[in-house]
């Protein structure tokens, strides 16, 4: 067995404390299409960036052709025959296809002038060699996204790259364009090229690749032969082998409707429909889970609910109050919100724990005001933070320490505590357990169930099916901006929801 590339115990810590790769070992053979799959945040892209020299590794070794390598920048990797196509395409729109391809290693004619004829001919030869459907004289700004992606690939092939890394190449393509890309990648493999291919679309992965490596939460789960596995097994590995399907939910009768979205639609600036006619209700004492592969409208749904973007159509009401066009502060009277990204949306990392604890309360709770709301009541803020600390068992050295000094789990406890103490009727949770360790996840689940018992309406968005099956009463599936399924959790299965996530409302399994 000749491994072309071998990763040995790779660790990557993003400063100060985020463990992106946790002891990853994997190997890739010459001449195979090897897919790396995992949920968002599983570490797929980081792994490839570490290999490619875009991100320095914290520990571990990489072997390429049995030699230890440590690329400090992509140029060194390309010189060794390794090239990466990124999710975002980086080309000069004003240049033609062939100009973009030769940029940086232009064939020179007399007196150091660019030999245009030769350059164009070389590019055409590469395109013919690999039978790509591409016009070398087209202006890059005027060609389709899929054609630009091909330009990126040819660009690397022109540099005689034999290992190609593709980061979610199908994410930007329409379904009709995908088979063509796959045919081209297949031809490349048959020519002896090695292709590493990041994806989270399992159908594609099974169709295209020879072997598949599954990652989960920064760890490598397994490498399997594509011919001996199926979607169900892959899905199970992606969400975790030890799937515990023992729900801790008590039976309960949901009360009246608290949250309601009617015909909610959102078109982005480019006119793409990100949300299509969303109709959703959450009752008091009910947990509704939103499942879906990331990028199918979850982000837009959260943003329209919390007020960062205005819906193009539709209505949002909470407890009978129309919040469709309400300012954020008005919404916050009715909505507790835990965002998925603690550092970007949920907290200020450099501010103290106290300062992070009182956000929103300082506006909604009279007791934080003295001098007619001009001054912040410091004594009460301290008291409040102490209460939050004990009630949600946050372990902290001092409430005046910066928020970033807390561990991820404790950070999330502060944010959850802050939001739940708002005692609003509707709770919106966006990936509340992302990046947490098992103990903290358990705690968050308990808390959410407790909120349900108190009669609050909870909407939880999660990429983790295991989590949704553990705590939700109903599961809705978002697929390409639409709700394609809305089922009580008792009447469905992980396999069925997984199918809806990947296929939308197609035939049944």
């Amino acid at each position, binding site marked *: 067995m000749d491994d072309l590339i071998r990763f040995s115990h790779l660790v990557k810590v993003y400063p*100060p404390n985020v463990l992106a790769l946790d002891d990853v070992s994997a190997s890739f053979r010459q001449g195979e299409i090897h897919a790396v799959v995992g949920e968002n945040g599983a570490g797929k892209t980081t792994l490839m960036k570490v290999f490619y020299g875009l991100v320095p590794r914290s520990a571990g070794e990489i072997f390429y052709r049995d030699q230890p390598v440590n690329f400090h920048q992509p140029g060194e990797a390309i010189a060794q025959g390794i090239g990466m196509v990124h999710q975002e395409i980086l080309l000069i729109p004003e240049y033609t296809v062939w100009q973009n391809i030769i940029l940086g290693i232009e064939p020179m004619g007399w007196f150091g002038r660019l030999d245009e004829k030769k350059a164009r001919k070389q590019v055409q030869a590469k395109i013919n060699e690999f039978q790509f459907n591409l016009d070398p004289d087209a202006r890059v700004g005027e060609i389709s996204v899929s054609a630009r992606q091909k330009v990126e690939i040819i660009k690397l092939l022109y540099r005689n790259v034999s290992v190609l890394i593709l980061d979610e190449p199908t994410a930007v393509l329409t379904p009709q364009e995908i088979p063509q890309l796959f045919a081209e990648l297949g031809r490349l493999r048959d020519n002896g090229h090695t292709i590493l291919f990041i994806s989270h679309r399992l159908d594609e992965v099974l169709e295209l690749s020879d072997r598949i490596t599954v990652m989960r939460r920064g760890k490598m789960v397994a490498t399997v032969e594509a011919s001996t596995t199926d979607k169900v097994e892959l899905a199970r590995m992606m969400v975790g082998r030890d799937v515990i399907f023992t729900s801790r939910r008590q039976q309960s009768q949901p009360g009246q409707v608290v949250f309601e979205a009617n015909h909610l639609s959102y078109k982005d600036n480019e006119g793409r429909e990100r949300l299509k006619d969303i109709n959703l209700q959450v009752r008091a004492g009910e947990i509704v889970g939103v499942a879906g592969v990331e990028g199918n409208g979850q982000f837009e749904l959260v943003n329209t609910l919390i007020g960062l973007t205005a819906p193009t159509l539709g209505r949002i009401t909470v407890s009978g109050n129309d919040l469709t066009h309400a300012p954020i502060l008005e919404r916050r009277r009715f909505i507790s919100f835990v965002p998925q990204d603690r550092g970007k949306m949920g907290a200020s990392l450099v*501010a103290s724990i106290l300062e992070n604890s009182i956000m929103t309360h300082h506006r909604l709770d009279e007791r934080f005001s003295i001098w007619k709301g001009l001054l912040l009541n410091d004594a009460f803020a301290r008291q409040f933070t102490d209460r939050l600390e004990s009630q949600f068992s946050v372990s902290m050295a001092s409430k005046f320490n910066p928020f970033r000094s807390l561990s991820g789990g404790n950070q999330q406890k502060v944010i959850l505590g802050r939001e739940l103490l708002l005692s609003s009727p509707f709770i919106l949770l966006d990936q509340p357990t992302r990046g947490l360790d098992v103990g903290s996840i358990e705690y968050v689940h308990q808390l959410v169930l407790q909120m349900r018992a108190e009669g609050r309406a909870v909407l939880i968005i999660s990429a983790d099916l295991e989590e949704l099956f553990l705590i939700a009463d109903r599961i809705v599936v978002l697929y390409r901006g639409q709700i394609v399924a809305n089922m009580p959790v008792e009447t469905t299965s992980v396999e069925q929801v997984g199918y809806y996530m990947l296929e939308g409302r197609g035939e049944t399994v």
Partner: protein
Amino acid sequence: MRQKFLTGISGILIALLIGAVIMASQGYDPFSTYLALFQYSLFSLYSFATTVKNSTPLILTGLSASIAFASGVVNLGQPGQLVMGALLATLAGLYIHLPPALEIPLLILAAMLGGVLWSGLAAFLRRAFNMSEFIVTLMLNMIADFFTTWVISFPLWDPKAFSPMTPQMDQAGWLPDIGDFSTVIFFMLLATAISWFIFNRWKAGYEWRMGGQNSLFARLGGCNVERNYVAVMLITGALAGLAGGLVVMGGPHRFIKGLGANYAWDGIMIAIVANNGLVATLLYGIFFSAIQTGALGMELITNVPSEISQVLQAVLVLVIVAGREYLNTLLDQIQTRRRARERTI
């Protein structure tokens, strides 16, 4: 807090050491030079009083920049706001005649109003046309500079003077000295205390700080980000305007050409050195003023040119800022390495 103090002190010591090496390489005796420098700025009551008075425009524009930057507002218009404040204070002092107890507060308010008008214009352009205050405040600096020069060269020109300047204003608006100390210092300290109180104790100050650290977090938390932006622009404009007013009222008592000097840019530099901390701005402001003030005396008794003070300032900025950033990345790196080691064992 203690760590900040230590990095500040050690930064200053290292910078002085580098400055000494530079002086020695030029053939000057660093020890006697430093002695002269600090004799004329810190070591006697009179020289200390002069240093503190000279620090006033540095500290007030520094506070203006610190509050703006810490709130995520890129107000770089302190130079323009300073001269506009000085102009309005001069105008009020020329045409309004009241007893000192009323005249002085009136002139102070006029100075702040001048700064507010200028920063408010930038805030308005941002709100109405979404023009970045970064570029607008910089451009308004030019306009204020040429506008005030025109005012003192033509409509308000003092015919008795040889260079562009206004006549002297009503004596009621002059800020008196008490012993060695100018009362300018009192207004500077008062403004500093009020700024600190608003920034650290008011609800608005809390929202400004949170917005500056993470504007999306503040917005999602229900803070009125747009209103806070305008408030910060206005209050930082007022501080810079006040700096200009105090320069006029405590000094030449008229608007003379080149009045704004380099105060505001030095103030912005101090804000950066102080990492936008208000107390740190006050302390660094006094220290930088000591170097500038002492340089003149140093030139008198040694043959070291006063320009060496600019070299010293540059070294200070580089050492303190670079040292702080390096310390932070170093701490991060140590933690990262520790974490990585935990995972591999």
